[in-house]
């Protein structure tokens, strides 16, 4: 790729980051952050990481931005006695202490830079990487080496990862336990709602293709699951927040999520039972199939499905927990606030 163009994209990336830092209005900052996320996913694809680019686009710039906006709108609801100032101060010119912090941050950056200089920015290093590249196809049957690493070689990490999402979802539903759905929102106009009805199945189809083809092409359970969750966010935006809750009860989502997790763990236990080790794939007797065909990769598609189920249900219930209105009583501001 043209180095000048690459350089420009990097500059743009930095510029969006700085603008997310400096913009006066929070909403503008959030939008800048979203742009930053998209640019980052472009950079990832430049860096030959399609899987990551997809995930970044879906999760960071899609899901997280929407959660940002939900949180923002939650805090902007006017209540009596509320401090409504959104912008607390202007950010330029910098105060002295901010200058000091800036310099210290630059110093930190200098040290971090020092760590990579002697490496000379080279090459594929390590036995592990070589092994993956040379043997992943044979040993796991998957075409997507990243999926092979993620679900087979280092499948245990992935178990941990879904546990992190599980924890977060549980936690957020704890944090918003005393809340209920907002009734007033009736969604957008009729035309939008009808056209959405056509789009939603396509989104779900797309999501399931990402999930099911995870072992063949970039994508997989995380990405597909997030797209699924996006469908449910669309429901919320287009039909109003109480619609989806009425159709799909939160309990169903929690059940789906838990089932996904248990499915993953169960697949791992099969490997353990056959004596090949937890989350073993070919060694545990999963048919590896022909590499490049749909039925290949042993347990990887199954794991992808489990993860997709889990992530989709988890993220949408996370979103719905945040959309609900807090009913927490005003507890008074502790201590004296200047």
């Amino acid at each position, binding site marked *: 790729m043209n180095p000048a163009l*690459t*350089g420009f994209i990097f500059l743009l*990336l*930095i510029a969006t*980051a*700085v603008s997310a*830092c400096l913009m006066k209005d*929070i909403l503008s900052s959030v939008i800048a952050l979203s742009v930053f996320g998209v640019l980052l996913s472009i950079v990832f694809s430049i*860096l*030959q*990481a*399609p*899987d*990551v680019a997809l*995930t*970044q686009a879906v999760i*960071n710039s899609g*899901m*997280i931005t929407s959660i*940002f906006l939900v*949180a*923002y709108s939650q*805090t902007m609801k006017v*209540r009596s006695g509320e*401090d409504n100032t959104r912008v*607390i101060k202007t950010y330029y010119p910098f105060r002295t202490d901010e200058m000091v*912090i*800036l310099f210290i*941050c630059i110093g930190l*950056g200098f040290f*971090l*830079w020092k760590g*990579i200089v002697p490496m000379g*920015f080279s*090459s594929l290093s*390590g036995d*592990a*990487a070589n092994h*993956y*590249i040379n043997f*992943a196809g044979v040993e796991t049957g998957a*075409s*997507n*080496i*990243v999926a*092979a690493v*993620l679900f087979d070689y280092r499948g245990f*990490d992935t178990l941990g990862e879904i546990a992190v999402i599980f*924890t977060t979802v549980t936690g*957020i539903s704890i*944090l918003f336990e005393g809340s209920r759905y907002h009734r007033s929102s009736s969604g957008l106009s009729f035309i939008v709602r009808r056209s959405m009805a056509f789009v939603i199945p396509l989104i779900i189809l797309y999501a399931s293709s990402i999930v099911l083809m995870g072992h063949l092409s*970039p994508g997989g359970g*995380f990405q597909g699951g997030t797209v699924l969750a996006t469908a449910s966010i669309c429901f919320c935006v287009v039909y109003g927040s109480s619609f989806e809750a009425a159709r799909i009860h939160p309990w169903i989502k929690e059940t789906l999520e838990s089932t996904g997790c248990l499915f993953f763990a169960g697949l791992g236990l099969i490997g353990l039972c056959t004596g090949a080790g937890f989350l073993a794939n070919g060694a545990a007797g999963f048919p590896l199939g022909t590499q*490049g065909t749909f039925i290949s990769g042993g347990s990887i598609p199954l794991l992808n499905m489990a993860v997709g189920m889990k992530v989709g249900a988890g993220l949408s219930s996370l979103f719905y*927990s*945040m959309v609900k209105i807090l009913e*927490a009583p005003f*507890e008074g*501001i502790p201590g004296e*606030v200047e």
Partner: protein
Amino acid sequence: MTMSSMSFAAAIIIFCTGFFTLLTGRNLFRMVIGISLMEGALLLFIITVGYVPGGVPPLLPLKGLPVNPLPHAFTLTTIVIGASHIALALAFVVRIHSSYKTLDVEKIRGLRE
């Protein structure tokens, strides 16, 4: 400048920007934005570690020397974990706002001494 060095530099600069935002932002949202920027920078950093000049994506069949797939697997995990952090932080922000009625972090100091 090579691709890697540019990328590393960008990652470190963005990380410092994020840290700066976290430290100086008085609004809770801005702090979360700072965290988010730091996470993004970290992702870029990890991906760059696995980058090989002239590499191809790690998809079989290979059409050349592929980049290191291990950092990609990392990054996927990190993205999800980072997203969890941010979602959790935002949930906390909403909760704090409902009890303190403010987003100014300097005023959120019920616990002290």
